[in-house]
């Protein structure tokens, strides 16, 4: 029998081709859960088929709470995705990363700093000049929903979803999204609204309120392009002031 302890810890049944999970958190959680199942099965004296159908032996919410508590006790903190998660349980989540600023940005042909690049969703009729405004949470959206989106807003959005900015998306002059791909929900929606959009943007030194020009008139990114082609086709975000 394969030594399953080397890949996945104690398991309730053999696995010839066991391996560690691809991510540390899945590995940690599933290893812990397998161990509980194996111990409970051994202690029950039942066959697998009897045990798996016995409600009294099933893992409970409390078991899973312990699994989470054990991981948190090591000092591990989760990466957040939704704002509400961080708001409700700040002690469990790592602080969001700071915005990147290397201080060593390349310049364009006119000597202006290039503060980011991204994949163009569709070829707009012209590049867009405007003001970068970060839209990262419910409060900012609510403010813009209530008071109106300021003229010339190029919205800088962290995630590629379409729900955070759903009620105001059509009012942006353009969008820069730091996640997803041109096929993500936000890409689909901006195309429908004819709002120019870069996806998978990488930013370096872009700040709230910066005047920028973005190369939305470049051809749409080819989602099937190889890495070199994809890099070459990226549109630039250039800081004006």
């Amino acid at each position, binding site marked *: 029998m394969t030594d399953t302890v080397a890949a996945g810890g104690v398991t309730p049944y053999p696995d010839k*081709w066991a391996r560690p*999970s*691809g991510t540390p958190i*899945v590995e940690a959680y599933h290893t812990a859960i397998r161990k509980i199942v194996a111990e409970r099965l051994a202690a029950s004296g039942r066959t697998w088929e009897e045990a798996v159908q016995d409600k009294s032996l099933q893992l409970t919410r409390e078991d*899973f709470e312990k699994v989470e508590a054990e991981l948190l006790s090591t000092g591990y903190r989760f990466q957040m995705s*939704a704002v509400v998660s961080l708001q409700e349980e700040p002690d469990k989540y790592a602080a969001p990363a700071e915005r990147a600023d290397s201080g060593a940005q390349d310049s364009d042909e006119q000597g202006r700093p290039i503060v980011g690049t991204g994949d163009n969703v569709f070829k707009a009729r012209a590049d867009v000049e405007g003001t970068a405004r970060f839209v990262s949470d419910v409060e900012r959206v609510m403010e813009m929903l209530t008071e109106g989106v300021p003229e010339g807003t190029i919205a800088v959005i962290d995630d590629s*979803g379409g729900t955070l900015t759903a009620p105001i998306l*059509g009012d942006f002059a353009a969008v820069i999204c730091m996640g997803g791909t041109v*096929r993500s929900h936000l890409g689909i929606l901006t195309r429908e*609204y004819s709002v120019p959009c870069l996806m998978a943007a990488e930013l370096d030194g872009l700040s709230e309120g910066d005047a920028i020009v973005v190369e939305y008139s470049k051809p749409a990114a080819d989602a099937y392009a190889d890495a070199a082609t994809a890099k070459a086709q990226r549109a630039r975000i250039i800081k004006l002031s």
Partner: protein
Amino acid sequence: MPANHSHLDLLEANAYVRKASESFFWQCTTRTVQESKLFPVNPYIALSYFNAWYRWPELLRKIDAAMPAEEIGDRARQVGSYVSTITAGLIPQFYLGGRQILLDMGMLKPTDAIDDILSVLDFGRRLNLSYHRSHAHVIPSDAGHRAQVHTERQTQVLEADALGVTPGDKLHTAFGRFMATASAYGFLSHCECRLSFNNHGPYMTKGGHEMLVRDMLDLAECDYPWMDGVASEIEHNNLTVVVIMKDTHFNIVDDWGSFEATPAYDNDNLVAVGVYTSDHLSDGYIPVHMDSAEELADYLDDLREKMTDATAGMWKMMAGWSRDQMIDAGLLVYSGVTKDLAHFAGVYEQTDWFEVDEQCQRFKPLMNDEYGGMLIAETVGLLSMSSQNHSEHHMTKFTDARGEMWTGVPYSILADDEWTSGVGPIGPGSTSLPTKSALWTTTRGKLTQEENNRLAREFKPAGWDLRHYDDDWWLKNHPGDPRADDLYKVAQASSAVLRDRGSTLLEDDVQQARAAAGR
């Protein structure tokens, strides 16, 4: 004791499992990982898989007993409803997703819940075969990503009645604006997922133009309790939008009902549009304000304004939700992909579909954003969980790696291996969301749950007795046959252009009729 299944049962089931694995991998890796700053998307997706695992076997058996899956498929392909390419195709995916995660946690063996698994897979396969009967594939990827759901009797009507547009005219402008608003509305009402949308086609039309049929679903007060009130001004629950495009080839219409086009979809290439409503209670498609381009444009402008208001109202409500409410809403949208099957069968119960099973609830403490995200990434993208790993010699489709998304059913259960039957009856459920209070919006008006079910059980579509003549293989050799004419006239019944024209029309006849009608 050997399981009560044949070798052929398992051969078919495992082939379907593998087909599902490969379809889902391609979809998930080309359509990108979902995320949202508003909704904890991946945690709710993972939880929805558990809800499907624990609830679907009994719910699908209940539906199947009232109306067989293949009959639902026969009905569903005649209308634009939530029984669609994407929802039908997801039956094996979400269910097997729950199983795979439990396998990886060591909480199941591949030999567990054998009767459940074979039952769900059989239901899913029969439904998909029937829904896609007209193009004789199980899922669109079998056809190189094409989904020609309709036969000629239906596509002729959709083409004939479409209202012509030119870029910048009133209908063209209204249509473009409406589609953008409806898209944002649909993503929000479905908690950041694309289940509100389904596309099928393309269908070739005059001059090499291509026609795509685009469904937008669950727009009004419907099964989702959070749409009560906020969507009260939306008249139709389902809209089917027909677009005919020039200089556009829809090269991909995929297993999620999404499309890609070459060159990219551009509203300036729009030639004609049509708008219909339909559901499980309608006899095919019902035209919506299609008497003239002017009338349709005015309607779409009005609907867009109502959807804009509904979007703002719904967003404000959702922005105030707790994380648990967001999780429950999202997971119930996902595990509810099969809910309209119950509407067709007339056995829909709100508590079946909009409560989170207690066996699913217990996993919530695990579901922080990071674990949810990594779990879904590993399950459907990286294929890197231990339970997914195959032998050193294995090369999976697309990547040549050792991981396969879904685990098959071991043939040892046909010999003397031990196995278990299923998860048992549905247990208690609960939800953090408000209870549904409004009536259901249908093509027969606003209905209670009981009225909705009764009308569904009583409903027999016109031409139903002739349904096995509704295929183009037979029609090819029987134009003008009374049975063919009867079937065509059912589809033509609400057509402004082809009413009662029967089964002998060719494309030139359709174009002449369009021209005569000023379309």
